[in-house]
Each structure stands twice: as C-alpha cells, then as structure tokens.
C-alpha cells in the first residue's frame, strides 16, 4: 500500500470518527470540536486529491470562519450559566434506521455504477500550461468560463451578509 493511500485512509477514519463523535455527543461544544476535526481531516484529504486551492479555501472559510461563527452562536444562545450546553436527541432509532437504509442504497449505487471516464481531455483545455498546482487553472477559469457564476456568488455573499447584519440588529422603533 503506497503512503498516499495510507494517509487517505488515516484521515478518512479521523473524519468519520470525529463526525460520529459529533453525532453521538450531547455536549454542543464538543460537537463543535468534532466538526472542527472533521473539517481539518477533509482539508488534508483535499490535498491528497490534488485540490490544493480547495484545501486552503476549506481551512480559511470553514475552520477560520464557520466554526468560529458556530462557537459564537453556542456562546450567545446559552441560558444556563455554569452548565454545559446540552442537546437532546429524539427519534434515535428510527433516524438511525433511515440513515442506514440511505447509506445502503448509496453504497450499492456507488459500488455498482459504471463510471464513464473520458478517453481524452477536451481540446479547449490544451492551451493551458501544465502546472503542479491547480490555482493557476482555477484563476483563469474563474475570469473566463465561470465569470458569471463568480459575480453571482459575490452578489449572494454581499446580500447574505447584509441580511445577517439586518436580522441581528435590534429594532429601534418601539
């Protein structure tokens, strides 16, 4: 077994274990830390899959932004002082049954699917330089082929931040 595959299995087991811990634990803060371990392991897996820009974006957006935001949410929505924030779980057995059934279906689909691998790369990609990193290709694609989705995503981000700031402000008039 080559070391890349071994590293993939190590980080995959870490991601699955931390996600299972996140689902199993009752403490909301521990669940946030389990999510943090899962996101870090997924960043490592992205690097192993030759997606370095996605890995760095994962570190910046998820680990640096979303997890911190979730931790602030846990802190600001806590009523009981001096006691760990607990999360009840309901429908544990029926939910597990549904999820196991879904996973069985997905695993059957993945294992039995016939993946169509394209025989040769498309001709339009031939003028791009051969590079080790994916950042150059992603940058060129973002301002040529994906310019409109790029602009729409920035607009969505702006509107979402304005909406979040508007929702979370106190109402002045009453």
């Amino acid at each position, binding site marked *: 077994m080559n070391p890349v*595959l071994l590293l993939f299995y190590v980080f995959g087991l870490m991601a699955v274990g931390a*996600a299972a811990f996140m689902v199993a634990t009752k403490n909301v803060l521990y*669940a946030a830390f389990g999510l943090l371990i899962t996101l870090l392991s997924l960043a490592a897996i992205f690097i192993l899959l030759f997606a370095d820009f996605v890995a760095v974006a994962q570190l910046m957006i*998820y680990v640096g932004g979303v997890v911190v935001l979730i931790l602030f949410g846990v802190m600001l929505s806590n009523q009981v002082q001096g006691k760990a924030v607990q999360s009840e779980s309901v429908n544990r057995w029926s939910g597990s049954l549904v999820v196991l059934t879904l*996973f069985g279906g997905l695993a059957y689909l*993945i294992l039995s699917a016939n993946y169509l691998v394209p025989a040769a790369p498309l001709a339009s990609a031939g003028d791009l330089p051969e590079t080790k990193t994916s950042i150059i290709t992603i940058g060129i694609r973002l301002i040529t082929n994906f310019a409109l989705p790029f602009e729409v995503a920035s607009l969505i981000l702006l509107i979402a931040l304005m909406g979040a700031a508007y929702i979370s402000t106190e109402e002045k008039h009453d």
Partner: protein
Amino acid sequence: MTNIPLIPVLLLGAVLFCLGLLAVITKRHAIVVLMGIELIFNAANLNLVAFNRLQPDLMQGQIFSVFVMVIAAAESAVALAIILKVYQYFKTVNLDQIGSGTDT
C-alpha cells in the same frame, strides 16, 4: 503518480452525508442541526473534488466546490443570525419547543 481510487472517496462522502443527515434528523438543538448541514455540504464538496480528477484539465469540480463553500458560508451567517433572533424571542433554541407554539 500515486492516485487514490475513486470508490473509497465516494464511500467516505456517503458516510459523511449520512452522519450529517443523522445529526439533522435526531438532534434538537438548532446549532447542532446547522453543524449537520455543514457536514452535508462537506460531503458534497468531497464528491465534487473526487469527480474533478476524471477531467483534471477543466477544474470544473474544484471551482464548483469553491462556490459551494461560498454558499455555505453565506448560509451559516444568515442561519446563525436567525438562531440568535429566535433565541431572543423564545428564550430557547430547542426546535421542538419552538415548533410546539410557546408564543402567543
């Protein structure tokens, strides 16, 4: 060139998706439900990056996974603002107590 085969990556994505869905179904704390949604987004990202290697010159999968991350960041910002507002109004973030009509 050492390559990771496609099937284990897809199975890992399926496992993470199912665990996120389990968190969304069973947990009653709104922030833990949000964490489950983030886990589902990450499983989708993993699938996109895995399928990107079938056509590595086009980078469609990686670019789309970056877009998914942007949408996830926007979604979590808005959702946490809504959760904080709900907490100020209902004094709880338990989804069952919110849904059973403790207001009026």
